[in-house]
């Protein structure tokens, strides 16, 4: 009996929270088509899971109460039953059906997430570089660069091209969609999209060393016009990034927000650093930026 009570105490808040009145619960508060697709999948699975929990907990409670040892059944001798093939088939078949019911939408969503949610709008590309312990965003088309915050146009799919100059990080903006790793010497792609203008928190989800907890960034979604305006403003007012400054930014530590009117992609793309054949870059953390300097051929002035 006691047991039944504590279980009710546990399940109730679960149902309550899933009811939706939780704007702080970022994952359950999707603000774009990617996050919404994942939200729908999550809710689909939660339904099945609650069904399983209800079935198991009910059987559990009923059996415990009915078959507990009590003074009345002192002489009762439990039968030695070996099992029941029909029951075995039933409780093998039902999980198989549930798994199938979950697998189909999972596979669909997993493939769908690799493509932009809409084909009507041309996606924009932003290169994301994780470094100890900051996020660097480069806009190759707009030719601007930001640190620890990123502006995106709402309603437009954004292709984030992720890489890292050091430990593995994971790029996660829960309200806009799930995460992907940013790894050294290679590039991964994550597509996100915001429905409407707003500010969304992002952070690294994969431990990357001492100050990893501070690897937060803000995603600012704006209308198309506002976004253009912001880009132009940056181009006109922000300072130029040079290799010396860039080297300083890469040094392990925390930096605030920064804005530049050119990108580091002009002289180095970390995603292409550790290629298979004939790669002559030596990429130790301490010296890599110095090297990038000596090897650079032009500046973006």
């Amino acid at each position, binding site marked *: 009996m006691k*047991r039944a009570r504590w279980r009710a105490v546990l399940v109730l808040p679960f149902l309550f*929270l899933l009811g939706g009145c939780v704007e702080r619960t*970022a*994952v*359950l508060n999707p603000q774009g088509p990617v*996050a919404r697709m*994942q939200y729908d999948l*999550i809710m689909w699975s939660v339904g099945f899971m609650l069904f*399983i*929990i209800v079935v*198991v*907990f009910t059987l*559990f409670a009923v*059996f*415990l109460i009915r*078959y*507990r*040892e009590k003074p009345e*059944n002192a002489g009762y001798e*439990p039968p030695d039953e*070996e099992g*029941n093939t029909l*029951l*075995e088939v039933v*409780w*093998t078949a039902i*999980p198989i059906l*549930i*798994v199938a019911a*979950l697998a189909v939408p999972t*596979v669909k*969503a*997993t*493939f769908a997430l*690799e493509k932009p949610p809409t084909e009507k709008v041309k996606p924009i590309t932003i290169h994301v570089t994780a470094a*100890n312990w900051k996020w660097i965003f480069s806009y190759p088309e707009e030719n601007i660069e930001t640190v620890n915050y990123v502006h995106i146009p709402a309603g437009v799919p954004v292709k984030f091209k992720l890489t890292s100059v*050091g*430990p*593995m990080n*994971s790029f996660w903006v*829960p309200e806009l969609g*799930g*995460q*992907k*790793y940013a*790894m050294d010497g290679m590039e*991964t792609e994550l597509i996100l999209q915001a429905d409407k203008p707003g500010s969304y928190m992002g*952070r690294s*989800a*994969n*431990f990357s*060393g*001492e100050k*990893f*907890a501070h690897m937060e960034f803000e995603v600012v979604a704006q209308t198309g016009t506002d976004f253009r305006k912001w880009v132009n403003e940056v181009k006109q007012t922000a300072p130029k990034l040079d290799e010396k400054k860039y080297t300083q930014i890469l040094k392990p530590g925390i930096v605030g927000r920064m804005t530049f009117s050119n990108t580091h992609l002009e002289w180095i793309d970390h995603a292409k650093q*550790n290629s298979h054949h004939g*790669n002559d870059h030596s*990429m*130790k*953390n301490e010296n890599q930026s110095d090297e990038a300097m000596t090897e650079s051929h032009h500046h973006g002035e």
Partner: protein
Amino acid sequence: MKWSEFFVTGEPLIYAADVAIVLTMVGIVFVLTYFKKWKWLWNEWLTTVDHKKIGVMYIICAVLMLFRGGVDALLMRAQLTAPNMKFLDAQHYNEIFTTHGTIMILFMAMPFIIGLMNIVVPLQIGARDVAFPYLNALSFWLFFFGALLFNISFVIGGSPDAGWTAYFPLAGNEFSHGVGNNYYAVALQISGIGTLMTGINFLVTILKMRAPGMTLMRMPMFTWTILITCVLIIFAFPVLTVALALMTFDRLFDTQFFTMANGGMSMLWANLFWIWGHPEVYIVILPAFGIFSEVVSTFAGKRLFGYKAMVGSIVGIAFLSFIVWVHHFFTMGAGPAVNSAFSITTMAIAIPTGVKIFNWLFTLRKGKIRFTTAMLWSLAFIPNFVIGGVTGVMLAMAAADYQYHNSYFLIAHFHYVLIAGTVFACFAGLHYWYPKMFGHILNERLGKWTFWLFMIGFNICFFPMYFLGLMGMTRRMYTYSDGLGWTPLNVVATVGAVLMGIGFIVLCYNIYYSARYGERDMTGDPWNGRTLEWATASPPVHYNFPVTPVVEDLDAYWVMKKKYGGFHVKEEDLKPIHMPSNSGRPFWMSVAFFVAGFGLVFKWFALAIVGALFIVLGLILRSFEDDDGYYIPVDEIKRMERAARKGA
């Protein structure tokens, strides 16, 4: 290296630990000397090859490591109780979650399970010892000195700080300059070798040393799970051996396996780690399933429902456990086809697991359920593990996992399966087999206090974490800022952790209390058991059974009790019993491993070579050894049987 770098300095906690360690060591030396127990310690414990004593030593170490890992956990919870706490700094926090994870999995869960299997499996199959008793002692001492090496990193040299998964390049020379991750690589290697040998040892034991009449399909369920676990160990641990060796080469000899330059590939580490790591999860959970099966069947007073389906489902789970590892990094961008395939294999594990849950439930049906402490742990397992299990299925759905991965949702999930699965099983097994180990019962009233405190605390601690995860809190954050709305749930979680800590203290007190006042078990069968371990005295004489029992069906002892009123030994049936001799070599060879390992950690290669030479010497001496054990004469057996059964 300077001495100031050799000893960890600068933290009051560390100094306190230094003092505690020195005082404990002085205390142990004093007690042993004062009571003249050195000889006893050497003869009875350090040189023993008796599986029961080795099992007890495993469990003692596991409980100590549970304390260490638990203190780590409480420190983490203290730091996370409020936003922007200054209780621990980032570096210290990172070390603590790394050691917490590593210790709980490898130096707590593993030895607890291995300890129970050491004590129980030979008894359950009616054997006198394991197939290779000498090797068994070596396995234990390698585990012990591996664990010791890992633990001294706390005060000497510095602890590893790259997470228990030690992902590269973070754990490589490029970003981890201290010796911490050397400790990780070397200490895990040493104890891993011990585990591998345990796997081989018990596989041979179970395959070859079962009592006459015990066919495979008459084996107790716990023995079945251990058999399958051994297979998992044998195929999974070599992968860890290689992964750690490559890590050691990268860190000590500057090779390029996982580095950022010259072709190194950090993703390779993640793959190797989890090709071992996922089967490892089942290595600690399958025996737990076995323990629950024994306890549920005993205290429901019924044969295990669907025995064949239970066996089949373990085999199925074990097979699937090798083809799911990618689900630990769906977010690595392997592509939708790969992710989908691993999603489906992972979800498929739910099918055999579900079969098991329902078979346990139907074992309870029509039973006569006795709510002993061991049974409470086993019953609580079912609902709690189901919560962990269904959230595991949710995590298995790749597209959705992108939102859960590395968040507190994941933390909640794996604590729900590892605590409600493995830890509950360890406690259930401890209470259940305690009389078999020590001859007295753990106090039931205190046991139930432990249960309720720990189980309720566990739910209060980890259930909120599911929601913290959905709120965007990621694992391994040493602090978080105010205004995120995470504070209330974190406070709740800390309260739960404290309750679990209190539960653990009550358990320790219970061990002391029961040793002094506990009810002696004179029958050898305090729970009305069903399997052969209850057919012998508590604790059993070191040869286990005076004559080998003959098995007629599943639940061999239950059948004997029904048919013959028990397991009777006629004195005229007694024959001299062959037993293996004790040996001190496993102990000192493991010390040599420790010395060699310590040398490697600090790159003192001369020391490492000295250690290695002693290891080789031990192997040579063993090869030339011509000790075939000894025989216990019949008169001696008679005397010992009478003494063991006195008062029965």
